[in-house]
């Protein structure tokens, strides 16, 4: 694999009043990596994802995607460059059915929207249903998503992110809210779905260390806005800082 740097964050700083949400964040992600972002609550993981995707502007620092500076861009422009994300709290179109949610994702992905072409046309539906099926969402496709249980919504959220066939995918706590016995199959599903899109780079925020150990090729651990570890899972999870602040294996004194 060529060691092409796809995403680089250099010297990111972000404060909210007195709270430091990001401090001296330097990260380089190579294409094809599966990176897990871990950290205690409030460590700055979501903030990091938000800065990469343009939702938050860092106070200082620079983010480049494939060599191109994306720091000033808005979420839409960054999405159009092939970055997709899912959300800690699913962001769906509550009054629409699951299928329609997917159709919207499809439609938005098309470069040119049409005034004439029906949204619910056969080939679009087929494409959407394929993905829904892959995520086991097929039976829910005609239900209003506001009525769907939390875990299902989570999956749908991720399925929508995948519709845009991204080269970089950021998942914010994909398995939270998903029942225990489904967490692993679900990560398998996601990763399998990704496998088909060639070499999608994935960053995922995760609290379950077993999943991290199984699915990540690299772990970045956050604490109080700083990166406290950045290594392959086995090594990262073994550092004192991570054991103290993240997994709680070492007790805080």
């Amino acid at each position: 694999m060529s060691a092409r740097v796809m995403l680089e964050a250099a010297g990111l700083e972000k404060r909210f009043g007195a709270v430091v949400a990001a401090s001296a964040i330097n990260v380089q992600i190579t294409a094809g990596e599966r990176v897990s972002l871990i950290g205690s609550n409030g460590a700055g993981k979501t903030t990091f994802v938000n800065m990469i995707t343009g939702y938050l502007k860092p106070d200082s620092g620079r983010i480049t995607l494939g060599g191109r500076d994306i720091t000033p861009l808005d979420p839409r422009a960054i999405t159009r460059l092939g970055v997709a994300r899912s959300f800690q709290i699913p962001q769906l179109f509550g009054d629409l059915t699951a299928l329609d949610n997917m159709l919207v994702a499809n439609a938005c992905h098309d470069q040119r929207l049409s005034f004439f072409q029906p949204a619910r046309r056969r080939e679009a539906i087929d494409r959407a249903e394929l993905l829904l099926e892959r995520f086991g969402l097929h039976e829910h496709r005609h239900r209003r998503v506001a009525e769907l249980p939390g875990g299902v919504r989570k999956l749908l959220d991720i399925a929508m992110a995948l519709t845009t066939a991204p080269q970089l995918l950021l998942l914010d706590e994909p398995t939270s809210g998903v029942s225990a016995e489904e967490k692993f199959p679900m990560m398998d599903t996601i990763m399998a779905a990704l496998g088909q899109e060639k070499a999608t780079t994935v960053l995922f925020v995760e609290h379950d260390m077993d999943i991290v150990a199984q699915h990540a090729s690299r772990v970045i651990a956050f604490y109080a806005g700083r990166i406290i570890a950045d290594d392959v899972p086995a090594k990262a999870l073994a550092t004192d800082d991570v054991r103290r602040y993240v997994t709680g294996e070492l007790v805080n004194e």
Partner: protein
Amino acid sequence: MAGLITILIDGITYASWLFIVALGLTLVFGVLKILNIAHGSFYALGAYAAASFVGWAASMKWAPGLSLVAMLLAAVAVAALVAPLTERGLLRFFYGRDEVLLVLVTYAMFLIMEDVTKLVWGANPYYVSEPYSLFGNVDVGKQSYVGYDFALVGLAAVVGSAVWWGLNRTRIGKIVTVVIHSSEIAASMGINVSRVYMGAFAVGIFLAAIGGAFTAPMISVQPGVSVGVIIVSFAVVIIGGLGSIEGAAVGALIVGLARSIAVHTAPVAELFSIYIVMAIVLMFRPEGLFQRIQARKI
């Protein structure tokens, strides 16, 4: 120089009654999420009730100074009578509906109240002008102002601070904040949500009514008084930011001053002054001057 002082005084006195009325509007929106078109009708009700009460007070031979008390009582009576009727009897069936739908509900209420006030009080005008002379006149330079106008500024300040203090500095205020955020959470905490709605709505009506009651001495109370205040008070709360007390105060001052400047320097522009100010403010602050804190979404 004298011109400037006149502009200021005129702007502030105009702002005072406007603030009282707009305060009620913004409060009701803040708590119940209803932008109440019928607010103008409550204003009219206050004015009519004041006419009836002051007339009654005069017939009971109350001292002239007590007519102010009669006006206050009128506003209380309107709030005590109308709030339960409209809130319990009508609005609660529409809670949680779309904001715009609720605007229409209150529009329907406005239509109904127009005819109801006409049926109750008839079409003939009422005058309550006795209290207007209570405070004598105050001379400022070339101008002679009616003391009552300044008394209204005082009333606005008192009412405004009372409501502000109640919402920001008391436990009741915090409780209202919880209800504003989510009625389900509030109920889970043990808050009697309908009572808070009712209370906020009653206070809102009271503010509209007291605005009407204390304006009554300067106007002739007759059909149609409701229409004029609606749009101006809307403009005030939009400029200030919906649901914000500080916003209503600043909005009322801006509207009052803008209008005063227009009348004194370019009377032809009076008709649009308010809307132009509103458009300009929204241009730079899409949600008004005092925006509500937004919860984190992602």
